[in-house]
């Protein structure tokens, strides 16, 4: 190689070396950068992935809680219990399956949604069996082998449940844990997605609730000026031969806006026809925006006046009385002014103040913050106007029927909505109406169910009525013998009385744990009853003539009024001897303006004999059994009454709180046939009834406020008992409120007539917190304790 060649080669080599170094440098730099960015990007992806998994694990855990709630509800409902209150001890026994005969009867219904043992040992076992039947349950890890398992303390640990077919990384696992000394079960839900877990927990309370405002085996009739907050249920019509045109409809409801003006009645009737033809969901309202329901509004002449997206009776009312088109009707200008409602006129003043009060004064605590204040007034409470903020509904709760819709309508020859009128509002997760409810869903209670509960009341009274009367007279009370008292009609104030009583009158007396002997047939005026007032009667009253033996009728001859036997010569048998006057062996009592710090109870008659075994409650009547009752504190004599209640002792109060009226098989009338209204409506005498009321049949008229559940026991059967002499089942019904001649009730006085005294004002509210007496066979229940929701927990 010559030199030039060598030099050139060397130079070429040197140039290649510089480029290489530079290239390598850049390669290293850019490579490092790329690697770093890749790591960052991967980290970002990891973060996003973790975040997604956290969300999915959280959602899985929440799904688990919802699943557990549903599972607990369905399995707990299989346990039909007669014990009224599920306390901590009984809850534990129910959960573990260790109840004894002292806990009443526990009947277990078969599972409906899976194949499992017919009689699981306790709710825990029932829930375990349901989990065992889960097709999606699996064991993703060794720790899950052998599950589900009930531990010694009653804790049920279940297998994880897969949330996605073929995905073993996404699941939830549930742990049910009874909490000692409470009736609660804590559910811990572990949500898992890959390596991420989230844990939630919430408690569920075991209990027993009968979620009805009225439940009845006889017909329910709800007239004008009655608002119901709570579901209604009736099995009437399900017995063979019971559902006939002559026997009447299971439920009759009448619009609150009838009897006001002819044109309004015409609008309501037109809307009722449209509802019958087009109402899809049976809530008694039509939605203008609904493709099918909206068609029904053509030609009715009423639009959505209040803007609540429904057309119902209330819109008819607004269209009639809202003269200035501001979507509200003023009924009390002074209230409206005080509430700051501008432009208040006088559109509905003095026309039907009781109806207006009923709507405007419903649901005082409208925002449910525990106090009634100016914010509730702003939300429409007592603001002197009727508008959408009052959320008017005839019934706020579902309607449940034992009969099928088609069977009822074909028998009645009419759409059921023409018979049961008025809007029904339910919660988001509920349906307005259910037909064909099974005997499991809608149970019937009978007089025999309450034998044990009634026995407690009988054992907790003293047989010293005469001594207590003597003491009462000595303390300033007055006694008027029956012979000196006037006759009064039964039912009180009825224009079609079926009997008359001359009652001894006990006035301004105090009784404590008293038994009223059979045959007393008294009127108690302005008396106070502390503890139990137990009404004795002859239970062997099966004779078909028992009702009528000794009944009187009123004979008017000029200015002379006499009372004569209504059925001369009729006798009834009692223990083999003929009786000419069964009222001496029974008890028909009227309480007027009395205060009850406890319960009314009585012997359980073997047959429903409403002429003889009856209580009537009239005037301003108060019932209290809870010393901490907020309403009690508002009474002028509240502190005195609270002191008396406390003196009864906690154990006795616990029993008294289970039923304010425990009169299975009796006829119970609340309020007056003649509506009594004071000049100041706030001062109108009203019956305030609280707690669970058990009666054969119940009538509520006039002005009454009921907070609780009405449970009826009497089922009328043609030819039996009081229906022996061609009695019609339709006449034996649970009636609330005013029915007039437009409703087919001849007894109701028409507005404008001399005997008309108003429509009344009846509010009936279901009390979810009401305790129940023992004896009612009803499924146990669970309800979530929302406030116990926690994130984190055992895992």
């Amino acid at each position, binding site marked *: 190689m010559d030199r*030039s060649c060598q*030099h050139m080669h060397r130079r070429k080599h040197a140039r290649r070396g510089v480029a290489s170094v530079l290239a390598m440098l*850049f390669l290293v*730099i*850019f490579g490092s*950068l790329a690697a*770093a*960015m890749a790591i*960052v*990007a991967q*980290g*970002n992806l990891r*973060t*996003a992935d973790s*975040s997604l998994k*956290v969300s999915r694990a959280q959602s899985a855990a929440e799904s688990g809680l919802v699943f557990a709630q549903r599972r607990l509800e369905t399995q707990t409902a299989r346990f039909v219990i007669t014990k009224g209150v599920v306390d901590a001890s009984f809850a534990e026994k129910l959960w573990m399956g260790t109840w004894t005969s002292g806990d009443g009867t526990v009947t277990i219904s078969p599972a409906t949604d899976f194949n499992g043992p017919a009689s699981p040992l306790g709710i825990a076992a029932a829930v375990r069996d349901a989990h065992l039947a889960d097709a999606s349950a699996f064991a993703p890890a060794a720790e899950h082998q052998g599950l589900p398992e009930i531990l010694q303390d009653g804790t049920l640990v279940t297998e994880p449940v897969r949330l996605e077919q073929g995905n073993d990384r996404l699941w939830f696992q549930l742990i049910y844990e009874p909490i000692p000394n409470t009736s609660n079960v804590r559910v811990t839900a572990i949500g898992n997605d890959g390596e991420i877990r989230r844990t939630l927990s*919430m408690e569920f309370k075991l209990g027993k609730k009968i979620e009805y405002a009225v439940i009845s085996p006889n017909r329910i009739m709800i007239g004008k000026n009655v608002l119901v907050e709570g579901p209604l249920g009736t099995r009437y019509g399900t017995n063979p031969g019971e559902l006939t045109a002559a026997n009447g409809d299971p439920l009759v409801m009448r619009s609150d806006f009838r009897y006001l003006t002819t044109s309004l009645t015409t609008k309501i009737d037109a809307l009722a026809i449209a509802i019958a033809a087009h109402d899809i969901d049976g809530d008694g309202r039509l939605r203008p925006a609904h493709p099918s329901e909206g068609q029904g509004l053509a030609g009715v002449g009423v639009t959505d006046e209040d803007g609540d997206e429904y057309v119902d009776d209330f819109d008819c009312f607004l269209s009639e009385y809202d003269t200035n088109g501001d979507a509200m009707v003023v009924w009390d200008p002074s209230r409206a002014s005080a509430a700051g409602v501008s432009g208040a006129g006088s559109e509905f003043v003095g026309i039907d103040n009781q109806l207006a009060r009923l709507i405007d004064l419903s649901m005082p605590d*409208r*925002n*449910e*913050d525990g106090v009634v204040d100016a*914010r509730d007034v*702003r*939300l429409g409470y007592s603001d002197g106007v009727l508008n959408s*903020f009052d959320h008017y509904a005839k019934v706020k709760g579902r309607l449940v029927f034992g009969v099928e819709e088609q069977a009822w309508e074909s028998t009645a020859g009419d759409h059921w909505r023409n018979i049961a009128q008025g809007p029904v509002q339910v919660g988001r997760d509920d349906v307005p109406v259910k037909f064909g409810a099974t005997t499991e869903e809608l149970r019937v209670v009978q007089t025999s169910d309450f034998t044990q509960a009634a026995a407690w009341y009988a054992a907790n009274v003293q047989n010293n009525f005469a001594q207590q009367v003597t003491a009462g007279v000595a303390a300033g009370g007055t006694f008027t013998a029956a012979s000196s008292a006037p006759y009064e009609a039964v039912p009180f104030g009825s224009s079609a009385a079926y009997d008359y009583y001359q009652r001894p009158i006990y006035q301004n007396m105090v009784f404590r744990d008293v038994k009223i002997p059979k045959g007393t047939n008294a009127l108690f005026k302005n008396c106070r009853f502390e503890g139990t007032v137990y009404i004795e009667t002859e239970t062997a009253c099966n004779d078909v003539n028992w009702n009528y033996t000794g009944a009187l009728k009123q004979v008017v001859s000029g200015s002379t009024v006499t009372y004569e036997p209504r059925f001369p010569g009729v006798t009834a048998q009692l223990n083999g001897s003929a009786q000419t006057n069964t009222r001496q062996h029974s008890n028909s009592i009227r309480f007027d303006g009395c205060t009850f710090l406890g319960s009314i109870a009585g012997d359980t008659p073997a047959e429903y004999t409403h002429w003889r075994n009856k209580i009537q409650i009239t005037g301003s009547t108060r019932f209290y059994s809870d010393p901490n009752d907020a309403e009690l504190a508002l009474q002028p004599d509240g502190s005195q009454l609270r002191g008396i209640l406390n003196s009864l002792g906690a154990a006795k109060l616990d029993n008294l709180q289970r039923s304010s009226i425990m009169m299975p098989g009796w006829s119970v009338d609340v309020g007056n046939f003649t509506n009594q209204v004071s000049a100041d409506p706030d001062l109108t005498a009203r019956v305030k009834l609280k707690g669970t009321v058990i009666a054969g049949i119940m009538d509520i008229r006039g002005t009454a406020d009921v907070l609780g559940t009405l449970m009826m026991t009497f089922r009328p059967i043609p030819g039996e008992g009081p229906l022996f002499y061609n009695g019609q089942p339709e006449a034996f019904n649970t009636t609330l409120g005013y029915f007039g001649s437009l409703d087919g009730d001849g007894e109701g006085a028409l507005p404008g007539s001399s005997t008309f005294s108003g429509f009344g004002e009846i509010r009936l509210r279901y009390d979810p917190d009401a305790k129940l007496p023992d004896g009612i066979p009803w499924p146990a229940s669970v309800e*979530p304790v*929302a*406030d*116990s*929701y*926690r*994130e984190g927990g055992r895992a």
Partner: protein
Amino acid sequence: MNQLPRNRVRRARRGFSLIEMLVALAICSALLTATLVSLYASFRAYQSTTEQASTHVIGRVVMHRVMALVRNGIGFGPVPEDPRENSIATDEITFLDEDEREITLRLDRTHSVLLMRVDGGQEQVLLDGVSGPIDTDGTQLGAFQLEYENGYKLIKASFDLTVAADDTVQDLAIEGNDVVPIRLVGSTAPRRIIW
């Protein structure tokens, strides 16, 4: 004659002319400058991405925490002055947590921080570089949207926060240099109230 070409070659091999050197230097400088700029941009992009990722992570953590607080909270405020109004937008909310402690969450727009106070104690910074939503006309909208039933019962709480990363180097006007603010939007229901 034979040597002449050899001398010419030797002279040519001996070095570059000044012009050549200047040209070469100019090219090298340009290349180096471009390389450095490129490197700097890469570093900035890396830094920006890292900061954004970090902000994302922190934002998510804070949002998860705030969501959990709301899910477990009760007694929310403020409530609308008029109970008929069921929605309120605000930069500050208060509620009670599962231990009955009063929690306050506040967006301080002046200092661009999200603050939390427990039981009236000292405010702690949950997140900085935070701003709230602003309408097109410049009106400040509440960072917290509370939806109530009957003006009292909270049914949903929503959050709309924008978080800027803590980045002070802003001297390169190229795309990718700016750290894009992150918008954190979330909505949840208080389980202890509406389960």
